[in-house]
């Protein structure tokens, strides 16, 4: 059996299409009427919960049987339902870490072609070309675990390309990447499209990355149907559309999200934590990720920690947060922070730590411990033996969680989960707040709320440390920047 010759770019048609996930009352996407010409490059926008991912999953043929949900209307690729057109659409997902299936780069790219029963010689021809297309110049037996985030996303793209899809679907492919990774992936996509002519549908909050390379922008209405549809110039140029997009949380170029407060000034006040010759490592005997850090964490000061993926930024803040044992040198807490506890944060008991240093992990779900938002907010104070319903209530109010108090944390949207993970840490009023990539994958509304809140905290004398790639975030918070690369940290004062 030989594989059919690749039949070229796909024509997409939706007629009154909608999908309701099993067990949900509301439709995730509804009343969708759409025609995409073969080869068209489309940026799909919309507020959180407008159904962008659902549309992509539908096009990829992943919304399957009746027990998974209910479909209405029709969604067709070249006249056929997506499930019947296996291999015609290729989907790249957001998180580079959860998409890798196999151990070696060559096998990973071959995987999709194998699944489509492509003959062996043809598979390796496609593997070579796909890796070329995405600019991954690596040996076929290179371990997939040794890749950076940007490389992993390009590998996922190559793997999808090996199917020779006529429709390329990208679900926030650059949301979790550092700035270099973003451009790497975007440019690889453009190269691929120029060669294959495939139809493209990309979902992304950060419009500026894609606005120049697409020829059509479609905005989904959260209430169903389409809010705006046209060339990037028209859709992103009309003032009323721009305003509506901005209020839906889309990053509109030239329209920064409205942030409250002002950029905190000055280096901050009294020292809370000081690191002297601090060396950090993930494990007790493991490799030193960053050595010789000398810095002061000051009350009312902001510190942004930047650097390429894998440089050891997370390890550094986990150590500063008293969670990992310093590998070398010293980390000591000043009496103003330590109070009755000792000066070594790593030796603090959990209940002491939670009142002094709050660490917000990159993945909010890792820190959810209870079955309701209300219990999450009460948990920290109860552990610390300092229950204060008024403060919990104020924190919930401040982070717009009041209407969700009874909800299960795991069922919240991405933005809500992020807000809750910050709120749980604020509930015990720590003097130091540490955040690992707080703005990854967040829409403009959540971003603005977060920045406003952090500015207020800094003004109130809290020390805010953030690991981030986000230049706008760094500018908005002011303070100093610690750049980590090549095993060393360099402090850049503003």
């Amino acid at each position: 059996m030989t594989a059919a010759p690749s039949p070229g770019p796909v024509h997409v048609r939706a007629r009154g299409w909608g999908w309701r996930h099993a067990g949900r009352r509301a439709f995730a996407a509804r009343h969708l009427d759409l025609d995409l010409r073969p080869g068209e490059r489309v940026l799909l926008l919309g507020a959180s919960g407008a159904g962008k991912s659902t549309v992509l999953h539908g096009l990829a043929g992943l919304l399957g049987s009746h027990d998974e949900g209910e479909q209405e209307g029709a969604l067709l690729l070249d006249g056929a339902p997506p499930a019947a057109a296996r291999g015609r659409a290729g989907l790249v997902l957001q998180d580079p870490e959860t998409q890798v299936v196999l151990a070696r780069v060559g096998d990973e790219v071959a995987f999709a072609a194998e699944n489509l029963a492509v003959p062996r010689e043809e598979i390796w021809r496609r593997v070579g070309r796909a890796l070329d297309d995405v600019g991954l110049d690596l040996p076929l037996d290179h371990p997939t675990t040794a890749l950076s985030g940007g490389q992993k996303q390009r590998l996922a793209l190559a793997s999808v390309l090996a199917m020779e899809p006529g429709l390329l679907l990208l679900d926030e492919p650059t949301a979790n990447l550092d700035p270099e990774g973003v451009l790497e992936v975007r440019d690889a996509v453009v190269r691929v499209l120029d060669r294959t002519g495939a139809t493209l549908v990309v979902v992304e909050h950060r419009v500026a990355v894609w606005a120049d390379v697409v020829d059509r922008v479609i905005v989904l209405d959260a209430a169903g149907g389409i809010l705006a549809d046209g060339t990037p110039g028209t859709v992103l140029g009309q003032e009323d559309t721009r305003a509506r997009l901005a209020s839906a949380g889309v990053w509109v170029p030239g329209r920064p999200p409205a942030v409250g407060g002002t950029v905190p000034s000055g280096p901050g006040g009294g020292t809370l934590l000081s690191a002297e010759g601090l060396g950090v490592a993930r494990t007790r005997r493991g490799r030193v990720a960053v050595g010789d850090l000398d810095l002061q964490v000051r009350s009312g000061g902001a510190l942004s920690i930047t650097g390429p993926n894998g440089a050891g930024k997370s390890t550094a803040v986990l150590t500063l947060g008293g969670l990992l044992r310093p590998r070398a040198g010293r980390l000591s807490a000043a009496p103003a922070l330590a109070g009755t506890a000792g000066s070594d944060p790593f030796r603090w008991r959990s209940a002491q730590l939670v009142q002094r240093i709050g660490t917000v992990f990159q993945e909010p779900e890792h820190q959810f411990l209870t079955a309701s938002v209300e219990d999450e907010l009460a948990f920290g104070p109860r552990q610390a033996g300092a229950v204060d319903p008024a403060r919990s209530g104020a924190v919930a109010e401040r982070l717009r969680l009041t209407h969700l108090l009874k909800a299960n944390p795991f069922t919240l949207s991405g933005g809500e989960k992020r807000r809750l993970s910050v709120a749980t840490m604020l509930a015990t009023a720590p003097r130091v707040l540490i955040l690992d990539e707080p703005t990854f994958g967040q829409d403009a509304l959540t971003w603005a709320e977060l920045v406003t809140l952090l500015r207020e905290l800094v003004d109130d004398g809290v020390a805010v440390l953030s690991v981030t790639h986000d230049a706008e975030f760094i500018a908005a918070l002011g303070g100093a920047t610690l750049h980590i690369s090549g095993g060393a940290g360099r402090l850049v004062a503003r």
Partner: protein
Amino acid sequence: MSGDYLTPVLTGRTLLRANPVSKLFAAVAITLALLASIDWVSAAVVLACELALMPLLGISIGGLARRIWPLLVAAVVGAYGTALLAEKTGAVLLDAGPFLFTEGSVAAGVAVGLRGLGLALPGIFILLTTDPTDLADALAQKLHLPHRFVLGGLAALRLVGLLVEQWETLGLARHARGIGSDGSVLARARNLLGQSFGLIVQAIRRATRLATAMEARGFGGASRTWARTSTFSGLDAVVAGVGLLIAAGAVTAARLAGTWNFLLS
């Protein structure tokens, strides 16, 4: 500690090139011979052959001992316990009150210890000398196991490797929330239980995402091709033959020595 089970550090120049199916065949032959009888002669022959083969396979004895020392301890403990408790036949070797060892009981103890090690080593040899991806290819192409099953297992193996890392991250994340490994025994047990539950939740979510990514790449269709061919060579005949030879040698030696006790008879 590396949690990446899909790219393990492999040793053994020779066995690495053999097809996993022939290695499995040899291991099964040896295992069956050992399972058939509990006697020290057959166990000793198997173990001696396995140890003698190690230099040839490129596995260093010191390196192996460092990895499997818990097994060595278990084998010694098992042998001692058996010698102490087994039926006391033959001449008395040591009589110190409750500690009574006879020729018969010591022979049984030695048999149990040697047999345990002899059973464990072939599996360990396979683990040390086999790339999981090659194993999956061989199982699907040579033994014709269903590809969904084989590749699902391979993908799951990768997730198992990530569990170690996730467990550590969860521990830190919980410590930061104010719940850690301090407090009473009861509090610690509760924390451990909560962390285990958290790990299960994360593992399921991760597996679901991986399944979606696999499905998005056309996984799950009726027919499938394989980019890598799983082949047999002369080496595989040798590997399978050596396995059979060891098994047959062990049985023959035990029968000649008169220690053979066929468990199914």
